[in-house]
């Protein structure tokens, strides 16, 4: 086996200040837990403190949500997460649509030790909960994508540093989510975020198109572009202005109307922009250039070097000889900016498994692969898969074999079984229905025909909060409680890209059994109506509208 030379991983590295800050927070939290257990703090007093450190109380147990900044992990960090899963949890973790990881079974008494272990890995759980700016998400192919305008990760890190423990933004009216995309194709769903940033060509090389007021949840709204080609030098000042206006004017009397999207609708775009400009005028000296020096420091850490050239060798022999390998490559491997390399998406959606879950052994397998053939770097995608962004074509046969040994070589990226599902009522205290068994039932039921169905996204949320992004799925499924029974509402025609569209609600919901029959009819109708075998489900729905598919869902004959 011939592995490429090791090299410095292009990612942010903690300095002494960062390490001190995180360890200090662990010490504070340890003291808070001790005071809670001794009775010195009431639950009412303690709850916001534990939430600030990512600790929730769910249906059956506590849950710890760990931040994975913009979804980027070093191999040793993934291995450390595996160790945590085994030592303090039940041997697995759940990768989320916010590119984080959740542990579903930690004991409160162990959480200070877990946070200390995370600190040893230069990781933490700060601002993974609460009404603060959450983990900034981005393109899982950043730094590797063929269509990249600029690597979004240095800017995501810059925003992370600005927003972490920001004294003004720890008690916003509601949680606040930012996403940033650096490719021509939006792979970060930027218009479904409170602030969405898109890198575009600009005066100084790159600039930002800024979208505000997007979000899913109870009131789904597609973000509105508020600034075009905003210079990089003005980004943080504008972010600060937007969040400050929201902090001042956002509603705090009703949590269902507290997100910035509601404020934007209430104020109107012009008034909202006027408030931002007013804030900027009054605070014109808030950013004095030091932030740009910090950006330069961060960017130096992300500088992308040319990867060592590699001959394709074994790859070309195997691709011709092995249909299983060929199918995996076609589905799970993406072209890289350097032609002798590729990005590998490791599916965490083996048929019948809980979407996004990985065992400790699987995490170690992925960490080992990253270390051996992937420059020690991994990404968590918002589709709940893991990506090795830089793998030489010559190493793909080896990667495939090693993944296959650990149940990680499912060749289904972009197919119906590559579905997103939130934890749902199997874990979540907010859920109104289960998501995981619905996802599993769909994945196994349609496994025999998923190649026939072609590209198709199903996104499942177990409650109105929409952690499963159901509004932007080709098919969205929302689990609700209808008179004490689990009931699943279907939306069709959602899209996550720059032309974001919210799925259209079809009608009354279904029981689980009814849902499967309804989907059978829906797919029969699609296969009948598509013009060619290469017309994707989304394209057929776009061409014909949702009516014929709605009729199919409800078993109504349609003449089309």
């Amino acid at each position: 086996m011939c592995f490429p030379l090791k090299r410095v991983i292009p990612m942010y590295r903690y300095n002494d200040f960062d390490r001190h800050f995180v360890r200090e927070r662990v010490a504070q939290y340890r003291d808070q837990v001790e005071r809670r257990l001794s009775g010195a703090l009431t639950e009412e007093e303690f709850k916001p403190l534990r939430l600030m450190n990512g600790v929730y109380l769910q249906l059956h147990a506590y849950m710890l949500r760990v931040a994975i900044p913009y979804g980027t992990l070093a191999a040793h960090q993934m291995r450390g997460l595996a160790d945590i899963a085994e030592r303090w949890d039940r041997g697995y973790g759940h990768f989320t649509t916010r590119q984080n990881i959740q542990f579903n079974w930690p004991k409160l008494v162990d959480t200070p030790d877990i946070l200390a272990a995370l600190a040893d890995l230069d990781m933490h759980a700060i601002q993974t909960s609460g009404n603060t700016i959450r983990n900034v998400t981005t393109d899982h192919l950043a730094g590797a994508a063929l269509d990249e305008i600029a690597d979004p990760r240095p800017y995501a890190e810059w925003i992370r540093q600005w927003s972490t423990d920001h004294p003004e933004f720890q008690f916003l009216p509601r949680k606040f989510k930012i996403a940033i995309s650096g490719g021509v194709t939006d792979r970060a769903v930027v218009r479904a975020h409170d602030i969405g940033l898109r890198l575009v060509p600009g005066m100084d090389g790159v600039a930002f198109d800024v979208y505000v007021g997007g979000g899913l949840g109870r009131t789904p709204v597609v973000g509105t572009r508020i600034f075009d080609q905003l210079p990089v030098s003005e980004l943080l000042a504008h972010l600060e202005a937007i969040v400050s206006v929201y902090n001042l004017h956002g509603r705090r009397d009703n949590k269902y109307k507290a997100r910035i999207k509601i404020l934007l609708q209430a104020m109107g775009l012009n008034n909202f922009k006027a408030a931002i400009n007013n804030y900027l005028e009054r605070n014109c000296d808030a950013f004095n250039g030091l932030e740009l020096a910090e950006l330069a420091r961060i960017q130096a850490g992300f500088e992308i070097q040319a990867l060592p050239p590699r001959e394709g060798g074994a790859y070309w022999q195997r691709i011709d000889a092995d249909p299983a390998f060929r199918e995996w490559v076609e589905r799970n491997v993406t072209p890289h900016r350097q032609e002798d390399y590729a990005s590998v998406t490791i599916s965490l959606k083996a048929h019948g498994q809980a979407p996004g879950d990985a065992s400790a052994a699987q995490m170690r397998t992925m960490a080992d692969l990253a270390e051996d053939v992937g420059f020690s770097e991994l990404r968590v995608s918002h589709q709940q898969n893991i990506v090795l962004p830089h793998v030489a074509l010559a190493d793909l046969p080896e990667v495939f074999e090693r993944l296959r040994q650990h149940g990680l070589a499912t060749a289904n990226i972009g197919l119906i079984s590559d579905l997103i599902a939130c934890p749902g009522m199997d874990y979540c205290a907010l859920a109104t229905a289960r998501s995981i068994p619905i996802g599993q039932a769909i994945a196994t039921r349609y496994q025999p025909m998923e190649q026939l169905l072609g590209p198709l996204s199903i996104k499942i949320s177990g409650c109105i909060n929409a952690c499963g992004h159901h509004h932007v799925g080709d098919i969205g499924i929302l689990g609700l409680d209808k008179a004490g029974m689990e009931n699943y509402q279907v939306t069709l025609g959602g899209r996550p890209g720059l032309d974001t569209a919210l799925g259209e609600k079809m009608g009354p919901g279904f029981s689980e059994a009814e849902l499967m029959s309804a989907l059978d009819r829906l797919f029969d109708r699609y296969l009948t109506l598509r013009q060619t075998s290469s017309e994707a489900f989304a394209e057929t729905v776009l061409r014909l509208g949702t009516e014929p598919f709605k009729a199919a869902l409800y078993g109504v004959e349609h003449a089309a």
Partner: protein
Amino acid sequence: MAKMGAPVVISANCLATGAVLYLGPERRWRADFAGAHVYEDLSTANATASAVDDPSAVVGVELVAVKIRGGSTEPRHYRETIRAQGPGAYVLPTETGDTHVSV
């Protein structure tokens, strides 16, 4: 606490571990739903829930509506059934995941 009709059992989560607990007949917390004491009288249940709400031991003491069918007690709502039983075994990952190839 939400208003509900009897019969009920009393539930909470363990402060230290987060585990789901039910109040047994001896006013001791236990992990199994089957061992929960059933209260036919709501005011007695509420008074007991207040009495056992020790914030240094448990979190979120609440009444859970149940029904008695064929001599056995079941939660009325599926949420509480899931809470009592834990997530289905289907949530646990395996390393024998498929190596699906359809060609």
